[in-house]
């Protein structure tokens, strides 16, 4: 039978406020264990949590970027369970009145775009980190992560394939990074994705029984886990087996999902309003202030780059992949570089050299103004493209400007017709064999001659002129 997958995603993202969500402890949990802790996040009795306004504003910003409605009135609730990652036996979260709800996001799929509904985005606290490497009989608990602000973003079951899930996660991460609310590092757990997956006979409306896959460490892992789960469920149904509602983990080494918890042992969390925390009221004026502070978002910027700079959809996509790169690109163009050339240099040579040096474009030693100046030097014929390719790494490593390096090293391109013609004649006289070959119709010989000429000019020959002179002399 032909089946269709129905997938909803839950993403937990750690928000990068300076302090934790309900106390003033440092929100950097990469410190020695239990050093960023206080009575509030340790869950001592009698303490009073107070909500961090930075978390509310970051959450509203995310909600607005995901086209959500912002609740005028929402509250914090207690989710009750016993587990050593939470000393007070409840997690502060939001239950029936989340801060953001009913949004949507557009993703690119093969042959077009698709809307993914955002059910809700709500505020909560992260839990302590358990470590199982201490001994065979004990686990260690580090409360540095407890109370780190967490935003949970839940989609409608609108996703139909592993590819769409991957596209959704990529687009969501891009938005979160543009908003600068999280570093979205999946390996370190600052972004965690879970997928609810079921399948149903194609063309039917009713949902099948779903499984939840969690603890996946990368987007490609999520992609593989979803693919595996769809195949597993299809095989089960084809055999006449029922799907069991359960939580499954992902074994990246074996490439399989496995049962972690069945529904029978699932918890009844007995949510109720947290009497320690007062309601969150976001009025229109506050919402508007946050809306006005939003940066231009990736899709809008992508479309504007296509319109304003005549970039292809591909180039615009690459250049706007991160906010830092898009900023850098725009600054390069503003410095006078032609739009298409700037995109080529940034996506190609510059990006490659930065990757080699393990640098992010935000840390690029060559300023956008400096790159713009280098591209202008090519444009006005001062240097040729080949010289520029050698120049760029030196600019990165020395921090010197293109202009200065060109002067220091005498790299100005030879565009003097007489000087070039003399060099070309010299090369032709020294290479009678290839000249004969060319005249006998072997085009490849011309490439060799051009190479010899560029060598003789130390790469500084104006390529257009060299070509022109060479063709004229060979034809004579």
């Amino acid at each position, binding site marked *: 039978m032909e089946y269709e997958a129905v997938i909803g995603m839950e993403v937990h993202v750690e928000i990068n406020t300076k302090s934790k969500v309900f106390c003033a402890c440092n929100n950097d949990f990469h410190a020695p264990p*239990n050093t960023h802790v206080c009575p509030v996040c340790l869950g001592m009795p009698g303490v009073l949590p107070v909500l*961090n306004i930075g978390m509310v504003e970051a959450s509203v910003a995310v909600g607005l970027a995901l086209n959500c409605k912002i609740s005028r009135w929402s509250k914090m609730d207690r989710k009750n369970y016993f587990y050593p990652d939470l000393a007070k036996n409840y997690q502060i979260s939001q239950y029936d009145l989340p801060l953001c709800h009913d949004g949507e996001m557009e993703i690119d799929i093969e042959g077009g775009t698709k809307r993914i509904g955002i059910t809700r985005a709500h505020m909560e606290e992260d*839990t302590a980190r358990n470590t199982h490497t201490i001994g065979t009989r004990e686990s260690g608990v580090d409360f540095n992560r407890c109370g780190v602000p967490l935003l949970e973003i839940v989609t409608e079951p609108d996703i139909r394939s592993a590819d769409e899930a991957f596209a959704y996660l990529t687009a969501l991460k891009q938005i979160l990074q543009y908003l600068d609310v999280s570093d979205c590092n999946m390996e370190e757990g600052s972004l965690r994705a879970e997928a609810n997956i079921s399948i149903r006979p194609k063309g039917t409306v009713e949902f099948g029984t779903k499984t939840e896959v969690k603890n996946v460490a990368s987007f490609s892992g999520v992609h593989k886990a979803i693919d595996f789960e769809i195949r597993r469920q299809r095989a089960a149904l084809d055999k006449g087996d029922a799907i069991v509602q359960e939580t499954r983990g992902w074994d990246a080494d074996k490439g399989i999902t496995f049962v972690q918890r069945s529904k029978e042992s699932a918890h009844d969390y007995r949510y109720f309003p947290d009497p320690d925390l007062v309601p969150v009221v976001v009025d229109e004026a506050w919402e508007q202030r946050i809306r006005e502070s939003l940066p231009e978002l990736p899709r809008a910027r992508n479309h504007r780059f296509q319109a304003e700079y005549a970039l292809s959809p591909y180039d615009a996509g690459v250049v706007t992949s991160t906010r830092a790169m898009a900023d850098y690109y725009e600054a390069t163009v503003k410095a006078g570089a032609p739009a298409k050339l700037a995109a080529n240099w940034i996506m190609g040579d510059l990006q490659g050299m930065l990757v080699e040096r393990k640098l992010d474009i935000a840390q690029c030693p060559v300023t956008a103004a400096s790159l713009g100046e280098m591209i202008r030097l090519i444009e006005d014929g001062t240097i040729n493209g080949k010289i520029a390719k050698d120049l760029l790494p030196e600019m990165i490593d020395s921090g010197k400007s293109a202009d200065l390096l060109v002067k220091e090293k005498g790299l100005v391109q030879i565009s003097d017709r007489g000087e070039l013609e003399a060099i070309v004649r010299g090369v032709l006289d020294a290479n009678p064999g290839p000249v004969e070959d060319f005249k006998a119709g072997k085009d490849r010989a011309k490439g060799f001659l051009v190479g010899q000429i560029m060598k003789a000019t130390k790469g500084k020959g104006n390529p257009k002129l060299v070509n022109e002179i060479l063709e004229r002399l060979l034809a004579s």
Partner: protein
Amino acid sequence: MSRITEKDVDYVAGLAQLVLDGPTKAKMVKDLGEILGYIDKLNELDTTGVEPMMHVLDMSNVYRQDVVGESLTQDQALKNAPKTDGAYFLVPRILDGEH
């Protein structure tokens, strides 16, 4: 007539990780039943047109500015721990996956 059975008490006690003996259980069946009876009584009131109360506190928007303050030292944090290796709180080994 109680709306609460011993099974309900066992379920709630289980969620709260409580072990109740026979007499306590019987008392709980009675007490919880009476509480629900009281709720039934409240339900007799006509609340048409009354705004639902979502929270017990009649105030809103009390926040902390996003500023880092002082934390405890590791020694202080671990001082009351039943068991520690000097860096972590130690608990009986956890086998189950995380929540």
